[in-house]
């Protein structure tokens, strides 16, 4: 093996650290006895809380380590690997610390935020592992820029062909190119929603035009294909055949681009949840600690 994923970093070294930490925490929890409730109030609970708080602080430091480009303190990959495993173990540590006692208070808020951060991290881990190879396959060796370049080339060819067609087909094809929509808002990117439209001439001549949906470019392709059997000259049929070919290729490229935007979107989107929640968690944690000491 020459490339190693972050889960397999150094033979999964930090997995064993995380397992050790969890088992240690369970053992510590089990030593609690007596009448006192098994939460942060006992010395064992206090220890678990301290470990948890330090762990949270350290996990958040990845953001700084990642940007310390000249740091000799391990590699970013090693940090990321430890971040994943120890972050998971935090769930065990924190749950044991609070002994699963929840209520409508700031302490539970801190716990919920922590759990949300960890879950969003799992989402991130999932997309980090599943998306890259799909993106690579989808681009089939090229780059997003290359897909766009081909799209623009197809646009130009489709326009050129459309100019030589009857006016209605010309209008349909050219308006479908002008009104092709890629990307858009967050949801449109993440779920590859397609708002493309095109303009069609009304059936009766001189009745104006209407705007119709052209999701996945299907309407435009259908329009040209429908003209094909009604072509009057051989030259026209050839023209329409060529146009259908170009439009289908264009549909495929647009699908790939949309897929590329969606998959890349997810690679980034989860961080917009994970990081702000972390900041909120740090604030809640601080409040939790201060409040605990005041009302002890």
């Amino acid at each position, binding site marked *: 093996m020459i490339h190693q994923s972050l889960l397999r970093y150094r033979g999964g070294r930090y997995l064993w650290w995380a397992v050790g930490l969890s088992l240690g925490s369970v053992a510590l929890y089990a030593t609690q006895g007596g009448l006192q409730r098994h939460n942060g109030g006992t010395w064992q609970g206090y220890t678990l809380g301290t470990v948890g708080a330090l762990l949270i602080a350290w996990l958040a430091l990845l953001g700084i380590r990642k940007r310390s480009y000249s740091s*000799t303190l391990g*590699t970013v*990959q090693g940090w990321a690997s430890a971040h994943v495993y120890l972050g998971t173990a935090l769930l065990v540590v924190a749950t044991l610390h609070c002994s699963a006692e929840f209520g409508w208070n700031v302490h539970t808020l801190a716990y919920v935020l922590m759990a949300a951060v960890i879950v969003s991290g799992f989402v991130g881990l999932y997309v980090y592992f599943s998306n*890259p190879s799909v993106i*690579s396959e989808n681009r089939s*060796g090229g780059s997003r820029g290359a897909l766009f370049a081909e799209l623009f080339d197809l646009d130009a060819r489709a326009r050129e062909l459309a100019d030589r067609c009857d006016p209605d087909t010309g209008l349909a094809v050219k308006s479908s190119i002008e009104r092709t929509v890629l990307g858009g808002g967050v949801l449109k990117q993440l779920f590859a929603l397609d708002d493309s439209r095109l303009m069609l001439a009304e059936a009766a001549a001189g009745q104006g035009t209407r705007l119709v949906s052209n999701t996945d470019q299907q309407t435009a392709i259908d329009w040209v294909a429908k003209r094909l059997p009604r072509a009057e000259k051989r030259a026209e049929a050839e023209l329409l055949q060529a146009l259908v070919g170009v439009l289908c290729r264009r549909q495929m490229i647009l699908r790939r681009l949309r897929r590329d935007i969606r998959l890349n979107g997810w*690679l980034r989107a989860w961080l917009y949840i994970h990081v702000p929640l972390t900041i909120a968690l740090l604030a809640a944690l601080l409040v939790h600690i201060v409040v605990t000491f005041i009302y002890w």
Partner: protein
Amino acid sequence: MRRIDNNDSVTDLYRIAIVGAGPAGLSAAGRAAQLDRAAGRQTPSYILLEGFEAPAKTIQRYQKRKHVMDEPGFLDLRSDVRFAAGARETILDAWSQDISRLGIHVRYGTEVAQVQGQKGAFVIRLSDGTTLRSEHVVLAIGLEGNPRKLGAPGEQLPGIQYQLDDPREYSGETILVVGAGDSAIENALALAEQNTVWIINRGKEFSRAKDANLNAIIAAINDKRRRVTCAYESRIVRIVANPSGPPLGVSLQTPAGEQAVNCHRVIARLGSEPPRKFVESVGIRFPNQRSDAIPELSQLYESNVPGIYIIGSLAGYPLIKQAMNQGHDVVEYIHGNPIKPADYGLLELQFKGLADERDPEEHLERFRSLTPMFRELNALAFRELIVESEISVAYADGPAYLEARRTMEAVRAALASRARPPRNTRVIREGDVIYEPGDFGTSFFTIVNGEVRLESAGTPRITTRLSRGEFFGELSLLSGRPRTERAIAGPGCVLVETPRRTMIKLMSSNEELRRGIDWIFVVRELQRHFAPYATPRELRGLAAKVGVRQFKAGDTLFREGETADSLFVLRSGNVALSRGQEPGSIVVAQIPAGQLIGEMALMGDPQRRETARATVASEALEVKRSEFLALTGREDASRESLQRGASRRAIDNARMAVRPEAGAVMNFLMNEGLGEATNVLVIDEALCVGCDNCEKACAETHGGVSRLDREAGATFARIHIPISCRHCEQPHCMKDCPPNAIRRSESGEVYIDDTCIGCGNCQTNCPYDVIRMEYAAPPKPGLLSWLLLGRGSGPGEEPDPRPAESAKAKGKKAMKCDACLGVKSGPACVTACPTGAAIRIGPERYVDLVEERRT
């Protein structure tokens, strides 16, 4: 000497005719003018002849405000004409001021067509038909040559030009661009922005152009919206001036017959006539036919034709300051003034740490007489070799060693204040290691005195003792591979360590030197592979029978199925072995330099089982059966290890042959030129999340400019080779760097030091597009001033795209990956990758890369 006076009949007789008003010629003329003034002469004793309308044609053509450097920094300028690093305009202004200040006698616009006669009475015929006479001729014509002419009637008409400075100057014109090379294509494309352009191509296609230019011009020709028309297989028959309409009427010979085109302008980009033909017509001999050959010169720059002197880049000195110093000195020599050359002080420092004190010139002569190979060099070339080399002296540990160290430390302390301190003697101890196996170093060592021990790396360890006059390090010099043995300084050894560039230059201008180094290379390779205990003397006869063969990328060494009776030792480059017929042949191995190829043919299986093809330009020694038997027939031959190696390779190849998918990946790697790489960035696309932390880390550790383009580059089977330096075995970029600013560290990183003059040669020479010409990025603000005051860009953010004025004044410099040389944590692109997608590997791990693909 003949007296030259004011008599009209002999006014055209000069003492010196200087041909070419570049830096060398200007400086020579400046010195001649000053000498005339000192002698109280009223009329000039010299003439400066220039074919162009202004001095310094090459520098005139630099882009506006280009920063011109004054490397080498350690050399002082010695000239009556001023020169210091600065903008092109500043330098040209200073020169034109100096031309009038010194009253330089110059004639512009007259090319020298012919030089005849002999010392004391040369007759120089000029392009305008006039002749003049001169006692001496100084050729300072540079290497650029004159542009090739159209060769059609009417080529002298206005509107016919051989260069294009600013394409935006012209608009709404019809312009004919003649030529099919890169400059013709680039001009045509730029002009087509606002003109109608015809490109006249003599051939059927644009085969000489770079791929990018080829694609761009084909696209432009086929694009109906762009006004570019191509006339293939066409040439201009004649040009006439039109009385009305567009001023030029051009007749084209096309495959469809003669065609007339009216246009405003014809721009011919037909390359230039190299000056060699003219130089040879004068009677000057070149040592060989190679295009980089340099004529032989005496220490006084005199050529084999007495009375004709050569200076500047034509003499092999591409830097402005060197050329100007030579211009100054050559005039002094012609006047019979035995001045010390400008590099005298440099030589003094080079010899300072030697045990015996002598005049540097004496040392120089002694060094030359002590080494048979150096005696083949002429005095000037040898002098250059010493100035550019590093001299090491070994002392026995004791008072003499300490004394010498102290002397040199004092010398260095005195030089420390100079921006670029000159080289000086390196004092070492006997027993010190000069280099270790695995070190990258491309320098070449000559033993001037004492002894050096070479210890082979493998087992058994074999020690060879080399003494005065012998040399070592030729393997790395010729192949670019790391050192294979340990070199240890022996008693009293004095070493000359010559950098690769200097050595290559000397080898291309001196056949004997080339043959000598080639010979020892063959001997040592034969020793290493077949007969480790044989002495060079014993191998002399055999080595002479072993030929060195050159292969271009794609050439075939041998084919599957052939019956053969020879093996190859790959000296440089890389060879891929494949099985099966094209298409569908499977790559089963890639052989790096230093290894055997096809040895099975001499060890039991005479039929070739693979086809061997060079993946990059390669050189190999071919050892025939008779020589092989003679070598392996020796008592002490390494037969067993040869057989072991052959069996192992047979298994490896067979294993690869049954896994075509691995072969396909290997094939991809070879097609990407990784055969000549030593350290390449490989991204696993299945792990890459596209965060670009690698690029950010690269920029942050390299002054704000990333030397890596992650997204660009080829991908195959999820292996992505981004645009980033792969530190080639024999770096193309090093080939012609005027200040020798591109270097290789001992650990193998190829880097550019701060003497870069921004000429862009390396960018042109790099086949992998990894070198960028950039301004220095503005410094990053501190974290707080970014956070609180919003200054500049923050950590990991794109750097400010606007370079500072000071950076602009210094000009663009070449920038490339140095594999984070000197960064403790290793290459930043790799250590900053959060997912483990980015790794840097050498060729020995390509097999692992392929292996991984199996699962």
